[in-house]
């Protein structure tokens, strides 16, 4: 598979994926082609909806029982927990996390998901909770299955859980995905691989036996570090142009090497 990596990235280009990554076909017509305009963080970006919206959103953190049927979702019960942190490692308290995922068979409750995996009437695949005063969040769910998509022949997404975090400011707004370790589909997934290789492990939860509850559920630990006003890629246009060019070359070289494996 030939992969073109776009040069247009928002945020640190050693961390964030480019908008154009043509192995992921949906990027081809939806990625901007003109350079992003570098802007400083003003009061508009250093504020954001996180504190106010988090304060008024009810928690709904048990995905195994929130379908309202009185029944329990089928699948391997999991606890997904960790901390929301800022770039200095300080906890981000009381911030809203919204998650959605496929069921144990890899099927979403969504009209656009029509592959013949079974639906589970006791599983909606949505949840939300707030981080506590120390930044900890915690969901109870079932382990999602992999599912096919139409990106390329015999394409399958590795098991994942979508996470959306408002965070403390507009610059910290993040939508991302949690993956599980040792999944052979990682190497085949263009969405996962659009992230620069050194940063990919940050998307993978780790098994944590201290989180596992006996005779109940397996524990997974995933800490999430949000951007904040302290680290901005804004710099003088001339110097950023130089560093962007060399980093894009490095990224292209890395991908070429992986493609050969």
């Amino acid at each position, binding site marked *: 598979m030939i992969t073109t990596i776009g040069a247009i*990235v*928002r*945020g640190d280009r050693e*961390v*964030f994926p480019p*908008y154009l990554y043509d192995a992921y*076909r*949906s*990027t081809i*017509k*939806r*990625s*901007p*082609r003109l350079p*992003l*305009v*570098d*802007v*400083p963080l003003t009061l*508009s*970006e*250093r*504020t*954001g*909806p996180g*504190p*106010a*919206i988090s304060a008024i*959103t009810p928690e709904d953190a048990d995905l195994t029982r929130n379908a309202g049927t009185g029944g329990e979702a089928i699948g391997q019960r999991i606890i997904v*927990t960790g901390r929301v942190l800022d770039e200095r*490692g300080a*906890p981000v308290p009381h911030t809203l996390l919204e998650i*959605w995922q496929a069921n144990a068979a890899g099927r*979403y409750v969504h009209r656009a*998901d029509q592959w013949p995996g079974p639906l589970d009437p006791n599983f*909606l695949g*949505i949840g*939300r909770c707030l981080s*506590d005063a*120390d930044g*900890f969040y*915690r969901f109870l769910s079932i382990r999602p299955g992999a599912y096919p998509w139409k990106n390329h022949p015999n394409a399958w997404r590795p098991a994942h859980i*979508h996470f*959306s975090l408002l965070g403390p*400011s507009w610059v910290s707004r993040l*939508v*991302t*995905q949690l993956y599980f370790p040792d999944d052979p589909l990682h190497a085949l997934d263009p*969405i996962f691989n*659009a992230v*620069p290789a050194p940063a*990919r492990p*940050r*998307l993978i939860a780790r098994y944590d036996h*201290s989180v596992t*509850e006996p005779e109940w559920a397996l524990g997974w630990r995933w*800490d999430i*570090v949000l951007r904040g006003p302290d680290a901005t*890629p*804004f710099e003088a246009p001339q110097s950023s142009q130089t560093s962007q060019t060399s980093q894009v070359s490095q990224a292209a070289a890395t991908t070429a090497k992986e493609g050969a494996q």
Partner: protein
Amino acid sequence: MSATTPTATTAPITPGIAPSQTVGPFFLNCLLREDARRNVLVQPVTAGQRIRIEGRVLDGDGEPVLDALIEIWQADAAGRYHHPADTSAGTRAATPPDPAFIGFGRSGMDENGAYWFDTIRPGAVPFDAAPADQSGRMQAPHICVMVFARGLLNSLATRLYFADDPANDADPVLALVPAARRETLLARRVSSDGSGAVYRFDIILQGAGETVFFNF
């Protein structure tokens, strides 16, 4: 559900900033559930001029993106953000933010690929890009916009300005945008009835008239 969580002392070394991933096609039931979608930002007692923002998101073929998600963030009518970092420093009046206005909107797309918000026209806000900026420079009234969609590996950040606002000429962020592209950030008044004005703001992801997107 048990309240057991690991203790803070077991926290590993900070792993580094989390990369973004696409919102994908299946966010509807979560991010747009009834109490999570926020097309209407105003309450009856919210201060300010009522406006409607509407538009479409178009791809590189000019086709509407039906599975996009738009979020907006804006100040109240007096230019105050509902956020603890807005400390009302500088020359602005020490009035608190409007308690009847948060300033956050989240909209999906209808069957024609259109999003909409009922909100108020925001006031001007300080520029203060540097810590302890004492210049008193102001930004023209604007609304921060973020676009999410299948095929966007990271959200796109842009801003909506009002085409009929003379303050745009002195806006320090618009000044960073190449002049020929500034009009892509201008919402244009398309109609009005007795209660407010309608502004149109289409977001073109790629190609002719491509919207200016920001890196911050």
